[in-house]
């Protein structure tokens, strides 16, 4: 039985470090019975505190989990423990037909998928055009009024001065952000919240806040004159303001088949919402894709994309001048370990491509890029300066690494100061590393205290 799943990959699925600890305590074979596997699934029964053992099963196409325990965590410690056992003690699993409690669950999953697809097809039927036009017109009216309000607010702020705005409490910003949500321009609301953060915490707030005002003003003006731009930029502007393109509409776009390397995954908590950003790279098409997943409250994020793997998949992209955000339309079977990507993009090429991107879309915050061969070096050996990092290419050109980056020493230790290919985001000032390839191995550079920096491949 060839087993793709390793301890690291399983631990990446864990909801928190407490679950890892609890799961490891259940990886003794003596606690398990009826361990089995098929091409599709893994299952076993775990002795718990009750009379009946917990029935735990994993659908490897996903992966997806189901356990009869009452835990609200997902995956629960039994599912993680079963997966860890499968990764490390594969011989203990019998290659056999799935018992009823597994096959019924798998059939149920297949059935639900079919219903979902059916519903999606039905949903893609065109809505009543008249009603839709009416809804759009109503929203447009609200948006225009929101834009008028925020223009006035920006003008007032500039008249009184940013020093005055800097002295205002959070509610000054938050109230306006809330009014923009009411006006259905959530994109602008987000920008105002960012301005509040800059004003409250950024040591160089004067420059950053001025630039943010400039970009916001430009966006308002662009939306008011949206008809003069080409279709792609119009899509960018509408998206920045807060219009969402319906998923069904995106799925109708031309799809791109490729082998997609899962380069990085970041999870960010915004208020009550978890946002997961997964970066993919098409090995044939040489293009990047960003898959966004959201989970509100206690809901669990989907973990079907595992960093350090690659999948055969068909992707569709949201419209825009430099389309990045994508949806997976379909994918083939299980992922496999990623084959190393050796980049030959140098720093000048990165800066040039960023400028080109800004010319197409002046609101571009950052661009994804794989740089290589590059060296990650401490900027200075002076005491106190050793945590300032830079990327240096073969022409000795260098760019600064984001000051928030914490894995510099780990990467230097792994690379021994040698050249690597590094993937990350460039925002015109700093490069924020997200992953790298050294030799044939992939390393995620996103801070993960559970597994630390770990090579795959």
């Amino acid at each position, binding site marked *: 039985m060839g087993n793709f799943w390793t*301890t690291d990959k399983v631990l990446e699925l864990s909801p928190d*470090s407490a679950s890892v*600890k609890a799961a*490891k*305590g259940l990886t003794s074979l003596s606690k398990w019975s009826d361990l089995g596997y098929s091409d599709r699934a893994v299952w076993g029964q775990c002795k718990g505190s009750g009379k009946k053992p917990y029935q735990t099963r994993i659908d490897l196409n996903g992966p997806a989990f189901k356990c009869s325990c009452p835990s609200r965590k997902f995956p629960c410690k039994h599912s993680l423990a079963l997966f860890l056992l499968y990764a490390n003690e594969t011989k203990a699993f019998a290659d056999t037909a799935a018992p009823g409690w597994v096959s019924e669950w798998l059939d149920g999953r297949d059935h639900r998928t079919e219903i979902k697809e059916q519903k999606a097809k039905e949903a893609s039927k065109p809505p009543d055009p008249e009603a839709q036009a009416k809804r759009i017109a109503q929203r447009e009216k609200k948006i225009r009024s929101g834009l008028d309000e925020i223009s006035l607010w920006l003008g007032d702020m*500039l*008249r*009184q*001065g*940013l*020093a005055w705005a800097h002295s205002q409490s959070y509610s000054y910003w938050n109230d306006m952000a809330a009014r923009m949500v009411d006006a259905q321009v959530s994109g602008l609301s987000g920008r105002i919240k960012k301005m509040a953060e800059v004003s409250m915490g950024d040591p160089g707030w*004067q*420059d950053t806040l*001025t*630039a943010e*005002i*400039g*970009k916001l*003003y*430009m966006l308002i*003006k662009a939306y008011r004159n949206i008809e003069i731009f080409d279709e792609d930029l119009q899509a960018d502007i509408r998206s920045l303001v807060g219009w969402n393109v319906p998923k069904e509409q995106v799925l109708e776009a031309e799809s791109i088949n490729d082998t997609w390397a899962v380069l990085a995954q970041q999870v960010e908590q915004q208020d009550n919402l978890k946002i997961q950003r997964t970066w993919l790279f098409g090995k044939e098409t040489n293009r990047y894709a960003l898959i966004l997943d959201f989970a509100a409250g206690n809901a669990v994020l989907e973990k079907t994309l595992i960093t350090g793997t690659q999948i055969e998949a068909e992707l569709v992209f949201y419209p825009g001048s430099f389309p990045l955000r994508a949806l997976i339309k379909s994918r083939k079977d299980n992922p496999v370990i990623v084959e190393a990507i050796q980049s030959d993009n140098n*720093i*000048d090429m990165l*800066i040039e491509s*960023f*400028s080109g991107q*800004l*010319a197409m879309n*002046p609101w571009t915050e950052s661009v994804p890029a794989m740089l290589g061969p590059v*060296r990650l*070096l*401490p900027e*200075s*050996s*002076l*005491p*106190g300066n*050793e945590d300032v990092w*830079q990327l240096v290419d073969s022409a*000795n*050109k*260098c*760019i*600064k690494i984001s000051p928030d980056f914490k894995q510099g*020493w*780990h990467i*230097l*230790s*792994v690379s*021994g*100061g*040698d050249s690597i290919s590094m993937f990350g985001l460039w925002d*015109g*000032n700093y490069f924020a590393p997200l992953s790298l390839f050294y030799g044939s191995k992939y390393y995620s550079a996103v801070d993960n*205290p*559970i*597994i*630390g920096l*770990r*090579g795959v491949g």
Partner: protein
Amino acid sequence: MKLSSNTIQQWNNLVSTSVLGLDRNGEYADDNVRLEFMNKIAALSVINKSGATAGKCSDVSLNIFSEPENICSQNAADNLREILNNNFNEMLTEWCLIASSNDIVVPPEYLPDIFESAMKLPEKQRYVIQRVIGKRGQWLSLHNARWKDVFVIKELSEEQWLTGSREERLALLKHLRVISPAKARGLLEQTWPEETPDDRAAFLECMKAGISLDDEDFLEQSLDDKRKPVRTAAADLLARISGAKLCQRMSARVKELIKYQPVQKGLLKKKKAEIEVTLPDIKDKELLRDGADPVKAGKMGQKAVAMANIIGMTPLSFWSQYESDIESFIMTCMSSEFSTSFALGFSIAAVRQQDKDWAKVLILNCHARNDDIFSLAGKFAVDISDLISFFEDYEKEEAAQRYLSQYSGSLNFAILDKFLYACDHVWSRDFSSDVIKANQKEFHKCHIGYDKRYMMYLATHLHPSIVPQLENGWPTKSSSFNDRVQTQIDNIISILKFRQQNIEELHSGI
């Protein structure tokens, strides 16, 4: 594209105006001018962002490290990650000792974390980390100013005595005292008059290693130093040299002050040994010069402390002329009204002279008998941990085992704790078994289930093979044996199992 100075100037002007506010500037009174101002901000904010250029790296001299090393297995590395994530320092030490005995090193990606963990360890425990970082670890720490001083094995040169920092000079002196005590003393004598009083006292502290009669003249002179910490340190060192004049002077004082009448065996009656003590004159300048400091300590008076100091600076071999059997002699002294002075003085002397025979008798007859014996001595108190600090690990265990067998059934767990905390190494199987038996037998008095620190200490020091003994033998029907106790015992068992698995992984090699 590089931003022109004109563009930068324009941007700076825009920012200044924005910060101060347009109302302050009459130029912006008109609505159209204000809109033009906003347009400029918008345009320049994009130009600024797109105008970034790459710098030229001035120093790419960092050498590349690519030597292959014997790296531990992934499972052993996973265990190390768990140890580091949970700050299990004792287990970290154990992991490193086993790894180094198997000639394996930590994987490169763990080096920064293990360096950071080691920075939190006491200095003397860091050496075990040094043994598992390999050459890559040495290379990496060279490039980090914080780690460099801790992990790079430095070549010590005598030149550092004149040019080095205080820490480097202390390290050099400690190092030289081990390999060439005379050379170290020579360096110190050379610069002694110019050293500050604090440094002089600190340097004398380094002379404990390799102390001998050769150091006597230098130390005798230091007894006349203007500063008390220097005089105290010199007297302490001289008291460690049994042939030193200071010890002879103390012996002479003892002869005058302590009269001993050994056991008299008559035909019909046996007369007990007797001891008569005259307390010293604490105004005696010679006595003060010799460091018998008559300060008040705890509830002990000045004279009683001075007496303890005199005894503490007298060679223990001196007492054999009074009584050849150490135990009988100590018991006689403990019956005196100045028993605290004797117990304190003998204990100080045993530690200074690293006399294991005296230490063992003192432990069992003074310290184990009464854990309160030094409550009178305040800051001068000498503990069981001091008395066995110079024992080998197995001798420490033997001392504790003697206590366990001699006091079985009436154990004082406060005293047992002192033995256990002094045995700060992984215990042998036999000793672990004795400790568990004692806890199970006298469960109603032990701290199992109530003292988290104690539980963690047991879990990290017991021999991992002791698990079966821990799983049974507890008085589960006792009213004081509740779920909390069982949970804590289960926790100890799971940590011991983790350690056992860890040991097996590390022994299985790379």
